[in-house]
């Protein structure tokens, strides 16, 4: 008999009583005691049954991956940018590597006062940074790391679901900017609205082209369809557009228009302080992570790669993370090179260049499909 079964038996026995029963209290007491005594076994069984999803939630697409990536990316970006600027970067915390500086900064942000401006809706204001950093992390549970390492495998709904969840993300800065009751936040929030609308449409069209080429909306099937050739090769246009889209969606230079420091102080994040500001910084990296993983899944063959040492799952995860790391370095490198675009230039780029090109890409894919090449 399993431990859970034992518990059920105990419970079934325990609750066969009537109100007049003299042993009522004793039996109820016995049931509670047996439940508590069996708790370790119940927990163990729960872990046994749910070992894989739990590992996934805690380790890979989940909490540890998000946090470790944020820490390493912040550290790497600071060191890397410092090299480009002829500086050394963080130096004292964690000796010369400066790795502990990230933790020190987090601790500092955590202990700082959260300043609440006058006449503002505080609950609304405080909820936004938390939501904006957790939503993209939620979208990440759809990303396949291997054919049997998908946290939430919903078949052909997975690609639309990703866009549905990630598409909610720009709403939150708009609310945050509104709630902050500050002119700079307000302008930043509306810049977010303009920018995401112009960026998300070409992204969705590109994703549709990928789905057509793979013949499915299922991310796993899209990855399997790229075993022979990555979609980056036949759909080079879509690849380039989606790459720009990743930078736009994660609000990184040259498209960090909503938080433009020299123009808008810090855009929609201006009024946030303390750990709430820490959450908005975290959100930047989580968004970056979610969209980059999606980009790899759609165009760079996802987890495909040669199997190393006969461990299929491990090598698939390794290849996905390796591609991810290379892209992160590339996108951070772009930050050293380019200044920021203006909002109107960004909108021109989105509506007049990226959207027509995305449609062209879609037509090209349809032509390939009709001609039977794919």
């Amino acid at each position, binding site marked *: 008999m399993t431990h859970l079964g034992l518990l059920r038996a105990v419970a079934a026995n325990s609750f066969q009583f009537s109100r007049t029963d003299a042993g009522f209290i004793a039996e109820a007491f016995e049931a509670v005691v047996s439940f508590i005594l069996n708790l370790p076994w119940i927990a163990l069984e729960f872990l046994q049954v749910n070992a894989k999803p739990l590992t996934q939630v805690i380790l890979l697409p989940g909490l540890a991956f998000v946090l470790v990536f944020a820490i390493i990316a912040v550290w790497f970006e600071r060191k890397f*940018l410092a090299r*480009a*600027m*002829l*500086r050394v970067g963080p130096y004292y915390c964690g000796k010369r590597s400066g790795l502990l500086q990230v933790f020190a900064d987090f601790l500092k942000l955590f202990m700082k006062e959260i300043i609440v401006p006058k006449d503002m809706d505080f609950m609304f204001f405080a909820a936004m940074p938390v939501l904006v950093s957790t939503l993209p992390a939620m979208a990440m549970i759809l990303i396949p790391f291997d054919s049997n390492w998908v946290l939430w495998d919903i078949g052909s709904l997975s690609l639309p679901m990703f866009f549905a969840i990630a598409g909610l993300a720009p709403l939150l800065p708009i609310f945050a900017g509104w709630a902050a009751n500050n*002119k*700079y936040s307000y*302008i930043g929030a*509306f810049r977010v609205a303009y920018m995401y609308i112009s960026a998300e449409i070409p992204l969705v069209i590109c994703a549709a082209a990928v789905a057509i080429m793979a013949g499915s909306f299922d991310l796993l099937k899209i990855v399997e369809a790229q075993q022979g050739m990555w979609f980056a090769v036949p759909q080079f246009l879509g690849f380039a557009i989606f790459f720009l889209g990743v930078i736009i969606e994660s609000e990184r*230079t*040259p498209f*960090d*228009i909503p938080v*433009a*420091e*020299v*123009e*808008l*102080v810090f855009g929609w994040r201006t009024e946030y302080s303390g750990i709430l500001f820490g959450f908005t910084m975290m959100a930047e990296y989580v968004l970056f992570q979610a969209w980059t993983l999606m980009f790899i899944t759609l165009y760079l063959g996802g987890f495909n790669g040669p199997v190393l040492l006969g461990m299929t799952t491990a090598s698939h995860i390794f290849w996905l993370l390796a591609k991810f790391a290379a892209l992160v370095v590339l996108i951070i490198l772009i*930050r*050293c*090179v*380019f*200044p*920021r*675009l*203006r*909002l*109107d*230039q960004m909108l021109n780029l989105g509506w007049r260049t990226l959207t027509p090109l995305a449609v062209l890409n879609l037509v090209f894919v349809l032509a390939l499909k009709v001609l039977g090449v794919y």
Partner: protein
Amino acid sequence: MTEPIIKPDVMRISWGPQHPMSGQTRILLDVDGEKVHKIIADLGFTHRGIEKILENRSFFQGIIPIERMVMADTTNIGMGYVSAIEKALNIEVPERAKWIRSLMCEMSRINSHLYAFGLQAEATGYFPAVFLWTTVDRTILLDLFEELTGARWSYNFILPGGVHKDFPEGFQAKLIKGVEYLRRRFEDYWEAMVENAVFEARCNGLAVLKPEDAIRLGATGPVLRGSGIPMDTRKDDPYAAYPDLDFDVITEPACDVMARTKVRYREIGESLKIMEQVANEIPEGPISTKTSFFVRSKPAEVMSRVETARGELGIHMYTEAAPNPYRVKINSPTLRNMYVFERLAELDEILMADIPVVINSIDPWYLDSDR
């Protein structure tokens, strides 16, 4: 400052003094969405009464406070004040001192233009590399200054009657080495910044100031030359050794922010040329005529003009028979250019995102305008 009434549907933003890019001033912007309708510069946050301080100091002591007007460009400001004193006191300056003065002025101009150039990079976006590069490369100049004068920032080196010290041993060779290094670096700046596609997209055709508007509004310095008008006090009303030196007045025909940036860039090249000439051709001779520290002037009213990095600095000095000036009036270039900046929103379409770029193309130094 009384704030003018604004139109409905227009939001007034107080851009500064608490702002990452504003400096020590406040600029009121009337914006409708992203478009800026009106710019109102609210100057005077750093008024220190330098003109009044100068009335209470002897001629020599006045050099110290007046150099605090623009810390990146101290020699040019000091040059203006000292040449006013020399005109008032009728002091002759030996030839070698004039050449050393020109050298110091040009080094100071490069120092200031490098800072402006880096800020221009910073203003177009988080473009961190160039700002830090210019900051690092300024140390070359600061080392040369330290070698010559003993100070890295405020030198008080140009004194009535000449300069404080002669070149130290082997200084000319170091000058030429520094010039060669900086020339190499400027090629990097050109490639990394001026020819950067996104930088060009941001700056080309932005905030056009037509030549007639530039003259009407009283623009000066690189702003005026960026509108294609070849006006430079070093040529028009030569002082120090400039009549003997070979250099060009830089102008750009485009009249936009990019033109002003390019003017600064190319002026640095001209200044390097002058530095090289001074290192090679400086005449021998005494470096100063003896002037008493407690010198008293005769009644006089003089006006001196010098070309600082930001434009023409005018110093109008009225003296009586006393060891200190009776009244000094300073016409500072930043103040003149800030009037131009205020009008730019009416002359050309400026967006909210362009404000830091446009204001840094003026290269404001608020301590200069507020005095």
